[in-house]
């Protein structure tokens, strides 16, 4: 579109008296009419009211407006409404720019209407400048079929598979062992509340369920050889007894489970056959081969809660359950459970009472003084320091059971490489977000559940499996995934094929289409802009946040009085939230800053910052989410590093690095943002 064809309409909201009571809106509207490309400007009492929205639509049609600037409250709450409104009259919603003059001007400069009006004008001018370069965006749909790969056929995998099959999805379960059931195969009974259920019963019930569905295909004795592609079009190669088979999958659920950490060399394990782990004890109980046992000792928290591993989550319960099972076989044996802390929550504590009634003794040992075990002539002797009594005990043991920690299954490293996901030091897969995205991997279409995520019991595993099935069902039920139009676009003509973008994308959204030819899978792109800011050749553009658009805003803001102005780049999620909170809280701060919204602080590149200094800006502020929060996983960390580099290079370009500020504000922290603005104005000697 040539510049002559650009027809910007500006709609300024009074927000009752919230804007209009401070800022002289008619004056602002008049000013706006004089801006380049503006063909129409108007005010309304409440831009978001039904009649004003209808008026907005009429004006667009009547004046042939093809770029809309809304100057009102905040895009964080109201942008979707205006986008929907313009879309309804056939205008691409990405041709709308939202300018925040309430939170960023009238509310925070209440005592100085003139200053507030000047700032509002500047902000609108910046919005109009950006509007000239706005381009159409589209919500991108990527088709997703209805077949899911479940890796692992334990209780998690079986539960997920069944619940996907119920909905008619095709499920392929790949299990490494000969038999489904996973870890449950090694466990005798599972206890829940007040009853014990043989784990074989659980497996049997689950297998019967699976058998009911012809749309479930089970591979046993089979491993995954390769997985390539992304949501909607994974190609999976499995191998079994030397034969390979390849099939398609749209989504993948990782349910690879967990395994005991073998306590090699600890407490005479491996040296004396009477030293076993809890799982080995389960085997012995099943085989019924234990006899002549008078002294049983269990040591809990083996390999847990130390430098490398956390709480195993189930050990306390398992040890007590097994102690009770041993009590049934050996009515007169002495049974001790040596523990550091009892991690039993809610009703689990009842089992302690049962154990005590059954004569099982509990001895607490200090965190830094584990029991010692000696093995002489096949006799085991356990030395333990009893915290309660404050002295050491010695006790013989005919059977010593180690409640050892759990770690991710041995296949974790392989699966990690195949799916390009990560795991933590304990070998458990890393979820997208520990609180709000526990069952998702960062990349769309990949999900996790059960012991693969962290050690847990059957109930929690079942819940996670159901949850992961829900997450995987959504794209398969919809038949597509949809990405917002704010996405990256690579101009291959300029691309050197360095691959930085491919390596750095937190969502795996940039793939190699061919050698030296990266391609953005737009449906997977979240629009953070990290790739664009890092691209050494400047070949990546972000829809709605392109370099041209951002630079146009910088230039517009600094057209007048640059030496009194601070250019602020703020992320949409948190720092913008803090700005809004400062507004809601009517926190008054110096009016020097002109804020430019980006989706993530990682979008801000050196050239944006340097351009502001070239034009004489008093300072530049880059604001993102408070660590460790980032809505794009690593964006603020990357931004911090990049800005450190920019600061280092600034003297070479003749700029004072002290004028570049970075700040990380939570969305609740209006006071912090206001304070940064006050500090900046002070340090930069702004009037």
């Amino acid at each position, binding site marked *: 579109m040539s510049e002559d064809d650009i027809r910007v309409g500006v709609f300024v909201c009074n927000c009752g008296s919230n804007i209009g009571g401070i800022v002289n809106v008619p004056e602002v509207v008049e000013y706006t009419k004089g801006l380049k490309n503006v063909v129409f400007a108007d005010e309304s009492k409440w831009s978001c009211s039904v009649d004003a929205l209808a008026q907005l639509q009429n004006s667009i049609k009547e004046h042939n407006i093809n770029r809309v600037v809304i100057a009102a409250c905040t895009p964080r709450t109201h942008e979707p409404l205006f986008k929907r409104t313009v879309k309804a009259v056939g205008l691409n919603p990405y041709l709308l720019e939202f300018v925040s003059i309430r939170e960023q001007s009238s509310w925070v400069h209440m005592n100085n209407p003139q200053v507030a009006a000047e700032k509002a004008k500047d902000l609108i001018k910046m919005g109009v400048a950006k509007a000239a370069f706005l381009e159409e965006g589209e919500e991108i749909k990527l088709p997703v079929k209805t077949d899911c790969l479940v890796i692992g056929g334990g209780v998690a995998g079986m539960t997920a598979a069944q619940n996907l099959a119920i909905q008619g999805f095709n499920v392929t379960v790949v299990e490494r062992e000969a038999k489904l059931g996973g870890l449950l195969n090694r466990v005798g009974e599972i206890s829940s509340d007040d009853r014990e259920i043989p784990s074989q019963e659980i497996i049997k019930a689950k297998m019967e369920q699976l058998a009911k569905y012809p749309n479930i295909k089970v591979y046993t004795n089979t491993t995954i050889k390769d997985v390539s592609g992304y949501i909607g079009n994974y190609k999976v190669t499995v191998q079994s007894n030397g034969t390979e088979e390849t099939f398609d999958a749209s989504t993948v659920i990782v349910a690879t489970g967990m395994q005991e950490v073998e306590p090699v060399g600890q407490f005479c394990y491996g040296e004396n056959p009477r030293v076993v782990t809890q799982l080995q004890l389960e085997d012995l109980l099943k085989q019924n081969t234990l006899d002549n046992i008078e002294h049983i000792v269990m040591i809990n928290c083996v390999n847990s809660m130390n430098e490398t591993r956390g709480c195993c989550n189930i050990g306390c319960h398992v040890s007590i359950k097994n102690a009770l099972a041993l009590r049934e076989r050996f009515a007169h044996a002495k049974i001790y459970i040596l523990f550091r802390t009892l991690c039993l929550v*809610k009703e689990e504590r009842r089992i302690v009472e049962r154990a005590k009634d059954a004569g099982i003794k509990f001895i607490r040992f200090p965190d830094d003084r584990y029991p010692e075990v000696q093995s002489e002539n096949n006799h085991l002797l356990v030395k333990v320091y009893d915290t309660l009594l*404050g002295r050491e005990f010695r006790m013989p043991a005919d059977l010593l059971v180690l409640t050892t920690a759990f770690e991710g299954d041995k296949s974790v490293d392989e699966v990690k490489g195949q799916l390009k996901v990560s795991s933590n030091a304990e070998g458990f897969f890393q979820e997208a977000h520990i609180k709000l995205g526990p069952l998702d991997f960062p990349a769309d279409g990949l999900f996790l559940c059960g012991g693969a995520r962290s050690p847990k019991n059957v109930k929690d595993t*079942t819940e996670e499996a159901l*949850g992961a099935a*829900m997450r995987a069902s959504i794209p398969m039920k919809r038949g597509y995934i949809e990405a917002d139009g704010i996405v990256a676009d690579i101009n291959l003509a300029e691309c050197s094929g360095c691959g930085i973008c491919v390596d750095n994308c937190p969502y795996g959204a940039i793939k190699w289409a061919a050698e030296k030819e990266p391609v953005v899978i737009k449906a997977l792109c979240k629009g953070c802009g990290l790739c664009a800011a890092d691209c050494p050749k400047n070949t990546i553009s972000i829809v709605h946040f392109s370099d041209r658009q951002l630079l146009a805003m910088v230039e517009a803001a600094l057209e007048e009085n640059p030496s009194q102005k601070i250019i602020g780049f703020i992320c949409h999620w948190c720092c913008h939230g803090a700005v809004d909170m400062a507004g809601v809280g009517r926190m008054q701060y110096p009016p020097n800053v002109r804020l430019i919204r980006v989706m993530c602080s990682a979008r801000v590149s050196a050239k944006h910052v340097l351009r502001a200094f070239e034009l004489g800006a008093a300072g530049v502020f880059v604001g993102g989410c408070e660590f460790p929060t980032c809505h794009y996983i690593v964006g603020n960390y990357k931004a911090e590093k990049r800005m450190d580099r920019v600061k280092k290079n600034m003297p070479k370009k003749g700029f004072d690095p002290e004028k570049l500020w970075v700040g990380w504000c939570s969305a609740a922290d209006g006071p912090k943002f206001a304070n940064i603005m006050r500090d900046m104005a002070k340090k930069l000697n702004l009037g």
Partner: protein
Amino acid sequence: MPDAILVIGGGVAGIHVALNAAEYGSKVYLTDDTPSIGGIMARLDKTFPTNDCSICIEAPRMYEVDNHENIEILTNTEVRRVSRKNGGFTVRLLKKAKFIDEEKCTGCGTCIQACPISVPDELDGKIGGTRKLVYMPFPQAVPSASVIDTRCRAGKMRGEGACIGGCVVDCSQCRECPIALCVKACQKEGKNAVLLWQSDKPMDIEVKSIVVATGLKPDDPETGLYGYNVYENVITNVQFERLMNAGGPTGGDIIRPSDKTHPHKIGWVQCAGRGLKEGGLPYCSKVCCMIAAKQTIITKEHRPDVDTVVFHNDLKAYGKGFWGFYKKAVEHGVRYVRAHPYDVCEDPETKNLIVKYEDLDTGEIHLEEFELLVLSMGLVPGERNKKLAKALGIELDGYGFFKEKDPLLHPLETHVEGIYLCGGATGPIDISESVIQASAAGLKAVSRNSEVVR
């Protein structure tokens, strides 16, 4: 059978059930008996074990719910009657009046500024938090609409000088009000969204399944528990959380109630409400250990010179990353003492608290002085659980949480087919577990009776 689902409770669990189900394609009614969705999480400062800012991560999901075409949010709404119909349920809801036209209100806050009366805030009252009689539940509230305290209308605030205190007419009799300042302020803005005469509205909906996500509430200590309500500087962990919060009554400044100064030594009493005291909770609430770790770390990050002591029982570091989080607290210099304080008294001059405790590792008795004492209170069932269970025809467990039919083999299902549970409705739980259960219960709700016949 109708295809919609009803989610009762708009906290983090309910929000995630709603989002999952709506994305799946189901129509969702999301009700909450408070004026905003968001639940407890919206009022927390940080979340363990990463210290992610709570509202920063929850608010985007709240806006997503608000903007989702498949979700209808019904706040201030209670479930009154449920009957089975056509394999699904007919549910009678009661939308209690906010005395605000939610459609018209833009949340601009002019009415709030006009209101002359401040009252203690429900959550922050004890630590000096106030709100007006017309108020926003919290700044990020969804829907972003004011709500009017019912006391205002009934003339109960007459003594306090409420603007309509002098009027003898019952608000419900009028259709306009020449007296109320909030009404006038809103009219002046050209909105007329304050409707003091609004009445509660019953509505009936038909749904195929129901998810109970009513959450839980922090236990309120009895007066006298470790000096609570007797000594000014004894507060609960929820109150401390609000003190830490930039959106709280002190703007994130950790100051003690008696003299508004920064305490230099703060103690946390874990399991403060447990069964060791008469009437105490008979179960472990499991999140309090990590809450204390979080609060001590944040305190240390605010001011590294503050002395922090945690009196704890068994340490519950059960979840992913929790142990590392506890270690982080220890690295920050937080002192953990395995002890159960049994007596607290106050120095009448300094208002400091002297805690008498037995160190359970050494057996020694100690006296230690604190400037602020935080009681780590557990989580208890919601107040309306009993009524709701009766309306839904489902059972509660011995503690008052909703009961699962078979926790091991069929988790989150109740004895009534088509009614599912998740989050704090089932018992003490943390945020990520709530989100997991929300996905799980959401799956059961949307896929009910959708079995594809082959």
